[in-house]
């Protein structure tokens, strides 16, 4: 499903080079759940954004679902992201002053889908994340837990085959974190491929994690 081969990523900023990732190789099969560990600044977010095609690696290649996302023009990688990849961000990253439903439907906007289809999809995603009762509430009025559920609903609205989560529990208390883990477990049971970057100890030793990988200053430590 996801094949990362020999990927390096270098950031150049004002004559200074930061090697965020060096020679990382990784293989994630379909339906697998991979846990990406590592200290702050070790390159977890960078790896996830490379997999999602948000940035291009300095060298190496990344193949997602049979297509080389690392070499794609932006327009096509965006389409891929839209259709096959759901993203849960480090800090929910909801768009303020939009309602829950509007936030959930943003990934559908670029496509010209009829309105009733969109509403049906949004309703399904919101129901599954137990946020449908707040559909028309502005997201900045929601509690942290509700915001998190909205973010998940938004990631799931297109029924992605791959869900990438970047420290999904970073801003949550223990109870909410546990409920999120249950959510991920449910996804895993549905056959969704999961890549979760975290340094939250709650995630260690989970039964549904197939692979745990540790990044250390941009280098993979199995």
């Amino acid at each position, binding site marked *: 499903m996801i094949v990362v081969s020999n990927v390096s990523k270098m950031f150049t900023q004002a004559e200074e080079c930061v090697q965020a990732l060096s020679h990382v190789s990784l293989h994630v099969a379909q339906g697998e759940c991979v846990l990406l560990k590592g200290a702050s600044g070790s390159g977890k977010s960078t790896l996830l*954004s490379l997999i999602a095609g948000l940035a291009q690696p300095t060298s190496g290649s990344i193949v997602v679902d049979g297509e080389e996302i690392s070499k794609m023009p932006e*327009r096509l990688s*965006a389409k891929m992201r839209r259709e096959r990849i759901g993203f849960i961000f480090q800090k929910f990253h909801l*768009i303020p002053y939009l309602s829950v439903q509007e936030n959930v439907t943003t990934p559908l906007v670029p496509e*010209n889908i009829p309105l009733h289809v969109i509403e049906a999809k949004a309703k399904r995603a919101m129901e599954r994340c137990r946020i449908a009762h707040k559909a028309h509430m502005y997201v900045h009025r929601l509690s942290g837990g509700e915001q998190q559920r909205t973010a998940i609903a938004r990631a799931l609205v297109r029924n992605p085959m791959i869900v990438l989560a970047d420290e999904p529990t970073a801003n949550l208390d223990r109870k909410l974190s546990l409920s999120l883990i249950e959510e991920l477990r449910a996804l895993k049971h549905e056959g969704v491929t999961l890549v979760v970057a975290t340094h939250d100890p709650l995630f260690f030793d989970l039964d549904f994690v197939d692979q745990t990988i540790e990044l250390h200053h941009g280098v993979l430590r199995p």
Partner: protein
Amino acid sequence: MLFSFRWLLLEYAVRSLFRRFGKNFFIFFILSFLIFILSSVLMIAESIKAELNATLKTLPDMTLQRFVAGKQTLIPVSRVDALLEIQGVGSVTPRIWGYYYFKPAGVNFSVVGLDAYEEPYSATMARLIKDVDWTQRSPSPTMIVGEGVKTILRENYYNDFFNFITPEGQTKKVGIAGVFHSDLALEANDLIVLPKQTAYEIFGMNASDATDIVLKVSANVSEIPTIVAKIIEKFPDLRVVTRDDIRVSYQNIFDYKSGFFLALFCVCAFAFFIIVYDKSNALSSEEKKEIGILKALGWDTDTVLQEKFFESFILSLGAFLFGLATALFYVYALQAPLLRAIFTGYSTLKPPFALPYTLSGSMIVLLFLLSVPVYIAATLIPAWRTSIVDADEVLR
């Protein structure tokens, strides 16, 4: 599909506009105001032009003026017969008219001499004096005046007569027989019509002369150049002003005036667009974050650009429609207080004529072209700058 329309994106753009209400409202307000000024100026100009054209229609086909040493002088009435011999000339009427300076009020009246038995030389004139009992013969001469003249005379305590002062310094008492009531107030407002004989006395002119001669053409309009050539051949000291000449010069004056305004306006607009450019160029971090999120959710640069385009388009179209509507109301319902003075300010008497309604499709197109595309051009590069924000930079 190459051009499938994205309604959802449009909806998103509308929401986005309302989310940044303060900033967008400021732009909307200024832009509407500029469009309002621009539309008003152009509409007033167009309207006055229409009014003048209506007036021109009633003018004689040709006016003959005599020039001696480069100055206009009087024409001997004896030439009328010679002119009538030219083929294609319908009727020839010598006119006696001029300006009378009324010192106490500091204004000029237009004085026209007309005899009762004579056929009025223009349709307007005929309309003006139609309702007045012109044939009544009172012992002293009488005149008919425009409303503006009447008001000014009354302010100077002349209620039913007026004392003209002739060049010899004598007074000439003329009774006021009536007042014009005409919708064509533009030219009738400062007008005084009185018998020819009286006019000669007031101006101190010899009865064998005329101020100028007006001429009606009986042949086809396309024959006018030939007739003009013949007249000049016969009387080289005459200058022929055709109705078309007057029309062109009027049109030039007004195009020039509104063009001048437009040029001034362009400077203001330019300043405004610099502000817009500056404002939308400075991307707020919140906006930057939003774009980053959208990109991570699968929007591409083109989609973001299109969304930004929709925003500018809706904003400028809204401002355009709003500005246009207010201008319509201001010009035609309120009769453009303040602004119309710029256009009619050159006449000493400000005639209270109504601006006729003349909004044409081309005017709307023109106003549109001067507002919406220009605004979009100003936001083009800022929009691009927004659209290329990197998702991964924002999401860390």
